[in-house]
């Protein structure tokens, strides 16, 4: 599996009226061809900000990319997405990298028909003429499960139901068969049975087109269903990265452990949910020590003084923590099992 994306040392700050917000503090990840990477975090963790920065979708000001690289490997060449010009990044948006937004109703233009929004992308990026684009658009709508596509082409977003709008957005995102699709919480606002349909749809499309998916979510259940690898984010930094089964069976970072313990598991014996005390930091200070320390039950003095390093705790399994603490956690697990 070839590499598609390599993001390193990404630091993003927001310069607002009330001060500087250190939104992303050292983001890194890799994405390989055809794989599904899930990025998990709660609100404010920075997951959406990171992804939007890759396609230069962050309004700047107030956002500023302080440092870092996001290398995209395309046809053997390597380009840094963060520093491309407007016209260059426009060629990539929609064509090489598709984006599915969370709220289809606000992401779709309400005064343009669904068909128009698809054909626009096809005409611009693939150079199709109007007729070809229309036929292709109908194919696309059918492939995402929208029946009566020929008529639906002329419908407007508000005439679709939530699930159908999401499908239409997916159609727009995959119209040019991109190498990567970034999906930002695309099913959060949907009903559970509709979400199940959309998840199946993504799986089918991925099988057919072979693209890589970056799936941003806070739902650890969806991650378990879809992902190959998982990255957990907290306060603008990745705190754990692992293949999906390893993450659930052997979580090392206290935040990940806390998240998993906070979830009720359908069909399992009911035990009291363990919640994580406290609230996330407000990101107005540059982090010089572990941002999770004050909520961590394994923390010691060092955690409040230094930035924890990224260490390996298993095959392809990395954690942002101090080694002595991770050792302690591993030992505790063996005891309870």
């Amino acid at each position: 599996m070839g590499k598609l994306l390599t993001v390193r040392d990404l630091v993003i700050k927001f310069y607002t009226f009330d001060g500087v917000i250190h939104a992303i503090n050292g983001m890194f990840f890799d994405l390989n061809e055809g794989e599904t990477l899930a990025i998990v975090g709660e609100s404010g963790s920075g997951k959406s900000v990171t992804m939007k920065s890759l396609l230069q979708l962050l309004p700047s000001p107030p956002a500023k990319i302080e440092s870092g690289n996001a290398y995209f490997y395309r046809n053997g060449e390597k380009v840094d997405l963060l520093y491309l010009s407007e016209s260059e990044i426009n060629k990539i948006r929609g064509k090489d990298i598709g984006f599915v937004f969370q709220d289809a109703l606000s992401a779709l233009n309400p005064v343009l028909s669904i068909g128009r929004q698809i054909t626009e992308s096809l005409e611009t990026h693939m150079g199709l003429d109007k007729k070809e684009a229309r036929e292709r658009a109908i194919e696309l709508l059918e492939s995402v499960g929208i029946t009566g596509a020929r008529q639906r082409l002329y419908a407007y977003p508000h005439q679709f139901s939530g699930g159908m709008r999401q499908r239409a957005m997916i159609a727009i995102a995959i119209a040019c068969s991109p190498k990567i699709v970034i999906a930002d919480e695309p099913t959060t606002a949907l009903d559970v049975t509709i979400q199940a349909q959309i998840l199946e749809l993504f799986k089918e499309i991925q099988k057919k087109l072979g693209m890589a998916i970056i799936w941003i979510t806070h739902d650890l259940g969806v991650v378990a269903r879809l992902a190959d690898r998982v990255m957990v984010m907290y306060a603008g930094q990745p705190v754990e990265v692992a293949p999906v089964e390893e993450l659930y069976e052997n979580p090392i970072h206290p935040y990940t452990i806390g998240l998993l313990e906070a979830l009720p598991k359908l069909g399992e014996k009911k035990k009291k949910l363990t919640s994580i005390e406290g609230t996330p930091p407000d990101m107005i200070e540059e982090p010089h020590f572990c941002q999770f320390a004050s909520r961590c039950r394994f923390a010691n003095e060092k955690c409040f003084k230094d930035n924890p390093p990224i260490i390996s705790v298993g095959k392809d399994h990395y954690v942002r923590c101090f080694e002595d603490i991770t050792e302690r956690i591993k030992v505790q697990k063996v005891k309870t099992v």
Partner: protein
Amino acid sequence: MDEKNEVLVEIKSLKKYFPLKGGLSFNVKKRAVKAVDDVSFEIKKGETLGLVGESGSGKSTIGRTILRLYEPTEGKIYFEGKEITTLDKESLRKLRPKMQMIFQDSYNSLNPRHNIGYIISEPLIIHTEMSHNDIRSRVKELLELVGLKTRYMNRFPHEFSGGQRQRINIARALALNPDFIVCDEPISALDVSIQAQIVNLLQDLQKKLKHTYLFIAHDLSMVQHISDRIVVIYLGHIMEFADSDDLFKNPLHPYTQALISAVPIPSPKMEKKRKRIILKGEIPNPANPPSGCVFHTRCPIAEDICAVEVPEYREIESDHFVACHFADKREKSRII
């Protein structure tokens, strides 16, 4: 008498239709959103009854109608054995201290111009003759009960996080020590780790104060976790009603089975092994519900009769009610 079995709230054949504004329509029944269409169940004292459904199911409407925030179109509501369906406004207001609601959108359910001390004390001001100092102490007591620092009393809603606002909501609902609390999607808008905090809080409070919950949500895992018994609703009709454990071990209605199958479980191993039931189609418009069994348009086992006849809601197994033509003919199937 065993207190546990005493019925606190009961609804019989409850219907709530919202007339569609269509200008001059003379036949209201024809053009209306049938949000709740013939729902009956009872809630026992001290239990947590879960009410689960997707959009258009009518679950929030049921909660509000029981509290008479909406007026029922048809049917009867009973509280502590007495009928309250047509109780006049004054008597209803006197009843309010016993039945309260925790709302979903914590931001909007708190008046942005009132500080939280006032918000929590308002029920006390309206219903009691307590002195200013007594009210103040009670507010402090309530803040402590829900885990907020008492010195936050002078702050305003926008100064708090989502989880904290929900705690304020809970404190207000508890102010008059109600017997019955309707929780309308109290955790949907919160982060995962905060959801656990709030759910734990609700359970702890129930242990301490022994009140009764109607827990309305769309998150099946959370509903299963907190509820003793669960009602599954689809387009204003009850599909299934059973004990929490029983529902999951032995779901009899195809909708329940699909719902359970659709809920993602945070365990990749289990996800790989699971049986998948993907419903086709969209949730129908409640203003134009399908004929016969409202679920038949998406049901994997639907047959001709389902489009014609509304299935009878009956007890298939002990304390396990289902509304399906084929409920007793199916084999037991575990979904998870």
